[in-house]
């Protein structure tokens, strides 16, 4: 098992090492994009609306039914 993991790790490592400069730039863009999406947009701009207001499923469903009934 350990040998297998080692092989897989080396497979990826060699793959990344042998990349051309332009391809490395591409990976930099990907990492920046993922950072913006998951660590800036998700955390600061896209909170779970119901999750941030209510802790239980019961409270969430009570809120949503109010929305359905009173509009």
């Amino acid at each position, binding site marked *: 098992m350990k040998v297998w993991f080692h092989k897989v790790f080396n*497979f*990826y490592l*060699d*793959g990344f090492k*042998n*990349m*051309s400069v*332009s*391809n490395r*730039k*591409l*990976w930099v*863009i*990907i990492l920046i*994009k*993922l950072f*913006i*999406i998951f660590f800036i*947009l*998700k955390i600061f*701009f*896209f*909170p*779970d*609306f*119901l*999750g941030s207001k209510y802790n239980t*499923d019961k409270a*969430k*469903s009570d809120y*949503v*039914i109010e*929305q*359905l*009934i*009173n*509009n």
Partner: protein
Amino acid sequence: MEHFNLALVDWSRAQFALTAIYHWFFVPLTLGLSFIVAFMHTIYYKTGNEKWKQMTKFWMKLFGINFAIGVATGIILEFEFGTNWSNYSWIVGDIFGAPLAIEGLLAFFLESTFIAVMFFGWNRVSKKFHLLSSWFVAFGSNLSALWILIANAWMQNPVGTRFNPDTVRNEMTNFFDIALSPTAVFKFLHTVSQAYVIGALFVVAVSAWYLLKKRHLTFAKKSILIASVFGLTASLFVALTGDSSASNVAQTQPMKLAAMEGLYDGETNASLYALGFLNNEKNNTNFKGIRLRSMLSLLAFRNASAFVPGVNDILNGNKEQGILPAETRMEKGRIAIQSLADYKQAKKEWNIELASQKLQEFEENYPHFGYGYFTDKEAIVPPVKLTFYSFHTMVGLGLFFILFFAWLLYASMKDKVDKYKWILHLSVWSLLLGYIASELGWIVAEVGRQPWTIQDLLPVGISTSHLSVGSVQTTFFMFLVLFTVLLIAEIKIMLTQIIKGPEEGDSHV
């Protein structure tokens, strides 16, 4: 509905549309190009010819650029569900949960695991396993699309579920009813086959550019041959599945079909408007152009004399055809909403008998639930002109692609493809037409079903969260900037690679 902030609804809608449109720039190329790469890889595996290896590696590299830039852009749509569309998310949660979980666990895992083997695996894994990886990536990408499209199809035709008034959520009653509903099957087949057309157009466009520049001639001609076979097969399949999809729309979303065809007054032997202009003022069809008599009835219901309801039939009802007036449905919807409120109150007061009575009343009227939120029946009519022109332009382009690929295949087989300069120029620009057709398809599907997020059950206005308009505007413009930068980056990197051309001994992405 008046209690809802229309500006908020419109900005939330605009943000979702913007994100989806940008996301859809990346997806079809991934879906289409992955199969073309797998085909080329298979030919290399079978023949051992280094030229095919070079071709596989080149198109694989362009596939990789698109995949890398586009990956995770779809996740933003899921963020928006939780933030901007929380009521909707809660109500559909149990239905979306299963397909999206399968998508995340199975398809994405398959795709992301084998993509590394596909790119890094040259001379590092066995040829057979390497080829298998290319196919796994292609199938994995398409499998991802399957689950997303099943979820979308359920919103268009909510089957296989039961609304639980206690949890306020739709619960799955039969997974296969959802996954194998004709709406889901046709949507998936139509969407992915259209993506294959984009993949083929991309290969044709790049190769045609090489021919115009008199570079990599053999490579470009072989690529065009493969792409034209793939593109012709796919574009024929798009027409076939499009026909089935439209027939399904006729049965499940008659208002959408009426908007697609600009049909205000329903008729038997309904005509198909083939080419012309629509003037739909005062809710009357005023079409100037070529009509194909009985064709719409035939295509929609497989019967040339079938009645096809128009917008006015759905608004005002048609007793003869068994169509309820919108106002009756609005009344029934209000009864459903009131019964739901009374049911909750009766349960609170432990009045079991009344709760049971109200629940029955609610379930009887539930198919009309969403109509209860409207006070003006005109609100259930989608933007007709936009839907009509989007649909007809899409169909026109679809027919053009069939002829285009057929001609290209013929010219390729006669080895004459580089003799016609104008067709090479057209080939380069056809990629843009492919994207236009693809985005128009989504406009038909999504604008045509307005004002619903879940057909007949949940209007868009009730689906949104109570946020400030400013916060949605802020994220709208953030996305506009982010996605535009990503798109520019993709085009720039792609062009750099295309200009470099297919070279021997390229390193992998």
